[in-house]
């Protein structure tokens, strides 16, 4: 049992000596998590026993953490909100169920931005997560707890969700690999909804190989989510050895605009030259409407959120205000006490853009631009197999640095949001350090072509060591 064991090695080790991996990681969580606050609820393995149903068992004994947005039967699920403090769901999310069947053992629920609305994990009602590379820096968000836990070696793999970059951005800022599959690839059943036309579940792991092992078990149609597609799930593990030779990779020129730190641009160009040396052909691509991604997203995501979060009424579950004078008072005070400032801002923006007189100008207009953005991607994929660029414009910023101005925080997702609007799969892989902090290379694929992403990422990781870099203070034997 070694800290940096690969997923297949961990599964093999568990077959030889039961519980070793689990005990190893539980001890690391106990000792190291207080520095990071990556977990909202550590889980005793007995608290969530496997159903006993026959499954693939291809991940037998693998410890896993779930973002606290996936509902877990009998285990508190908060979505990072006071609204759901103490909520114990009566059922499992599809992702949780499938990973149970594959043999994973749930080791904890990870911290996150409240209702997945945030890019720094600072909107969590359970306090911010710290970046293991520098404890004064944010881990990114909203899957910041999952990213920090994997980066620090508190768990080998974790689930996350990505509505506007919430897997890729924290993966980049914490120096790990994170994949957001195509919209519709993984069932959203049991994922607490934020923006339903963009929300998608994925994996945070130390390598493309580890992520492929986990996504293979999560993906596939689920009759309980009518947006999960009926396509067969390819063998992502088999795709890892395909290589990048002969692939045409489009370098998204818009990503190299003035907002990108020059040192980050240097790491990305170095990474691209590694892919070129491996036999990929690099082609410059411009996506004309991509610059409108952030404004489109901040109309559509709040609109969908205001509608999804209408369900929190203080009656059926969740926080309820004390001594309401009437039903309206019960609704209003329960919601205002239960939701944090960022969630309330987004609900109000969503209410505005959907309200009478503004619907056409904001909501319909944004949906039209959304199609222009998707069309740009589809056109690009006529001449390339993958698109590439940085995942974020800068490395991890300081805690508190961007909390004063919501708009500054929103712009942090400038390179990731377009992918969600278009529904495409994308991943982030570590591409080096800037001032001692990790930087991520983002690869974007065609609809439902996660295989090419895994192939390119695995080839890159076979030629570089960035994904093996360890944050100081969290190496083997620390604590």
């Amino acid at each position, binding site marked *: 049992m070694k800290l940096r064991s690969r997923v297949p090695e961990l599964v093999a080790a568990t077959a030889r000596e039961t519980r070793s991996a689990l005990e190893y990681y539980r001890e690391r969580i106990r000792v190291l998590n207080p520095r990071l606050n990556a977990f909202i609820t550590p889980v005793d393995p007995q608290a969530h026993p496997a159903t006993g149903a026959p499954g693939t068992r291809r991940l037998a004994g693998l410890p896993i953490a779930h973002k606290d947005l996936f509902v877990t039967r009998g285990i508190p699920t908060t979505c990072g909100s006071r609204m759901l403090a103490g909520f114990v769901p*009566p059922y499992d999310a599809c992702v949780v169920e499938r990973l149970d069947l594959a043999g994973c053992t749930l080791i904890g629920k990870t911290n996150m931005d409240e209702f997945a609305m945030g890019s720094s994990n600072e909107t969590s009602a359970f306090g911010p997560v710290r970046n293991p590379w520098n404890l004064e820096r944010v881990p990114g968000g909203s899957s910041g707890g999952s990213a920090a836990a994997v980066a620090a070696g508190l768990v080998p793999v974790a689930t996350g969700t990505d509505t506007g970059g919430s897997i890729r951005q924290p993966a980049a800022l914490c120096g790990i690999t994170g994949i957001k599959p195509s919209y519709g690839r993984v069932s959203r059943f049991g994922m607490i909804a934020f923006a339903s036309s963009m929300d998608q579940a994925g994996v945070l792991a130390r390598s493309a190989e580890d992520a492929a092992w986990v996504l293979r078990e999560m993906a596939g149609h689920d009759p309980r989510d009518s947006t999960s597609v009926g396509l067969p799930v390819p063998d992502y593990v088999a795709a890892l050895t395909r290589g990048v030779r002969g692939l045409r990779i489009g370098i998204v020129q818009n990503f190299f605009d003035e907002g990108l730190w020059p040192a980050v641009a240097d790491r990305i160009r170095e990474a691209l030259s590694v892919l070129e040396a491996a036999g990929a052909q690099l082609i410059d691509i411009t996506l004309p409407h991509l610059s*409108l991604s952030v404004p489109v997203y*901040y109309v559509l995501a709040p609109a969908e959120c205001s509608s999804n979060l209408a369900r929190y009424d203080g009656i059926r579950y969740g926080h309820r205000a004390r001594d309401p004078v*009437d*039903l309206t008072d019960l609704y209003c005070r329960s919601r205002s006490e239960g939701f944090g400032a960022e969630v309330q801002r987004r609900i109000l*923006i969503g*209410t505005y853009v959907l309200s009478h007189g503004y619907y056409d100008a904001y909501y319909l207009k944004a949906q*039209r631009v959304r*199609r222009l953005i998707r069309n740009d991607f589809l056109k690009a994929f006529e001449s390339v197999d993958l698109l590439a660029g940085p995942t974020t414009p800068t490395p991890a910023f300081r805690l508190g640095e961007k909390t004063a101005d919501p708009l500054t925080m929103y712009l942090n997702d400038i390179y990731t949001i377009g992918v969600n609007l278009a529904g495409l799969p994308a991943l982030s892989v570590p591409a080096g350090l800037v001032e001692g902090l990790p930087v991520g290379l983002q690869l974007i694929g065609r609809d439902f072509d996660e295989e090419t992403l895994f192939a390119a990422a695995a080839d890159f990781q076979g030629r570089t060591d960035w994904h093996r870099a360890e944050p100081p203070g969290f190496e083997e034997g620390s604590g």
Partner: protein
Amino acid sequence: MLSAEEVKRLSVLARLEVRPEDQDRLVRELDRILGFVRQLEAAPTGEIEPLVHPLDLIQPLRDDEVREPVDREAIQKAAPDVAEGYYRVPRVIE
């Protein structure tokens, strides 16, 4: 420019209670965000079809039959206030 009255109206629609001490800050923040998204006005969209959803999926329908029994007791364990299998709320009808 967004007005305080408009934010008040939005909060009523959204069933949120805005505390008086938060109001000025909220008006400023929302106005700035709306000002930012207003750049979409200039986008040349013409009559291009709005994209509601990234996949042009047809809503699949299934037979309307009972699949999972509803375990009322298990579900209501999460409720703040229940009585005799019902959710209890303040008096609605006088």
